[in-house]
């Protein structure tokens, strides 16, 4: 029994969520307001991880990043990163895998903001960026929170894609979900239960907080 898989899991989830947030803001903003003809294609691509088996994603990552082919070789030789069976590889795979969980809440949050708020900021001389930061994001705080938490929780819960691209290297890529599988295989039910219980408790608590905050229950308690 060791804390290592759990710490690795939360480290992966945290890094993934933070990078996703930065990447998803412009993407969701574009999806919410663009009238471009390629928008349906981009929307489809963003949503693909929702329906695709994680193993499919993992398989293609494995093929693409393997040092046995030219792209993977180039990455390793020139850029100096090995993406297969490494933590950066896990992060990259998780980014793709959890992308819709960050983009969708933000996109629908933005789409739900009355157009007049944006128009009002524009006629006041505010740029798109200022409008996003000062008006739109504060207005869709619940959507942001939902996006952050869902991405985090979803990354915590991923298994297939991690197994395919990360393998099972203790301290590097052996996250909690894989550790649980390992322990069950080895019939160590006690250890499996330890990891499972902690994941269960943590995810329950995180999601509960989202519903409490977005439902305004905490404010009511404060009064």
């Amino acid at each position, binding site marked *: 029994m060791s804390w290592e898989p759990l710490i690795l899991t939360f480290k992966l989830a945290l890094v993934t969520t933070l990078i996703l947030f930065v990447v998803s803001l412009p993407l969701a903003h574009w999806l919410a307001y663009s009238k471009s003809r390629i928008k349906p294609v981009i929307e489809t691509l963003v949503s693909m991880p929702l329906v695709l088996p994680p193993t499919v994603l993992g398989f293609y990552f494995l093929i693409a990043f393997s040092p046995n082919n030219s792209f993977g070789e180039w990455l390793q030789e020139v850029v100096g990163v090995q993406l297969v069976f490494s933590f950066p590889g896990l992060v990259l795979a998780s980014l793709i895998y959890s992308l819709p969980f960050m983009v969708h809440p933000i996109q629908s949050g933005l789409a739900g903001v*009355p157009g*007049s708020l944006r128009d009002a900021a524009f006629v006041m*001389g*505010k740029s798109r960026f200022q409008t996003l930061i000062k*008006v739109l994001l504060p*207005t869709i705080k619940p959507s942001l929170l939902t996006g952050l938490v869902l991405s985090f929780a979803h990354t915590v819960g991923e298994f297939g894609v991690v197994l395919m691209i990360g393998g099972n290297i203790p301290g590097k890529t052996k996250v909690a979900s894989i550790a649980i599988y390992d322990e069950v295989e080895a019939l160590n039910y006690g250890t499996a239960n330890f990891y499972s219980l902690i994941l269960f408790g943590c995810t329950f608590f995180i999601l509960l907080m989202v519903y409490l905050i977005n439902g305004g229950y905490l404010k009511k308690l404060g009064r």
Partner: protein
Amino acid sequence: MMQIRIQKNLEGPSGPMLLDLDLNIEKGQFLTLYGPSGAGKTSTLQMISGLMRPDHGTIYFDGQPWVDISKNIHIKPQLRKVGYVFQDYALFPNMTVKQNLVFALSKNSSSKSIMDIMDIMEIGNLQSRKPDTLSGGQRQRVAIARALVQQPQLLLLDEPFAALDLKIRLRLQDYLGEVHRTYGLTTILISHDIGEIHKLSNRVVSLEQGKIAKQGTPSEVFVGHNLSGKFKFKGEVLHIEKNEVVYIVSVLIHNEVVKVIAQGSEIENLEIGDAVMVASKAFNPIIYKIQ
């Protein structure tokens, strides 16, 4: 001051519609756009403010080209410095009243004007409240105040008082008339309220299906619109009842029911649901102020 010649294909309520306008607006004018919904009034404001791009045409403001599609000129709304009051107020929900006003302030202007404007609109006591705690009338005052903070030369208002009850509407009309004069604004208002139009504007442009149907002073445009001095209303017969030697006819006018005494010969071919004109000489009605 402003020359508008624009064309834009729009989706009207009854299919595609061409909005085709040719308007000259003088400085200091208070102009009202009037017409059925879907006639292109809001689109007109959006194209003047730069929020919508016309298909063809030009807009010149004080000799400056804001729009000249043939030369590919379309100045961004950010640079036009137009005050715009939206139908749904568009107050930023994450900011207090004061923060809403400060946000509208351009970079190098002083915040002193905010105090003056809050005084005029009487919203000083609301300054630390969030918009969702305000009543409709209060929100609308904040929205107008916020548009004024920008110190615009041109103020656009999209049916600002439509959702408010009569008493508050009348008071806000006074505020609007006052700021129009105080700040020497050129104002374009969208309104359906003929009383409001008479009270505030000195020019009315009536739009129908994207075209100017009529324009002129309110009295010129609304002649025959039951305001020519006669006491005359269209209504619908709700009920006819004989009472001794006369008949009492109940007529629905707008959403009020009035009763009219009539003779047998007058109701002979009158049925429930008929459209009727109720008229009296201007001498008979009694008028008094509603408190």
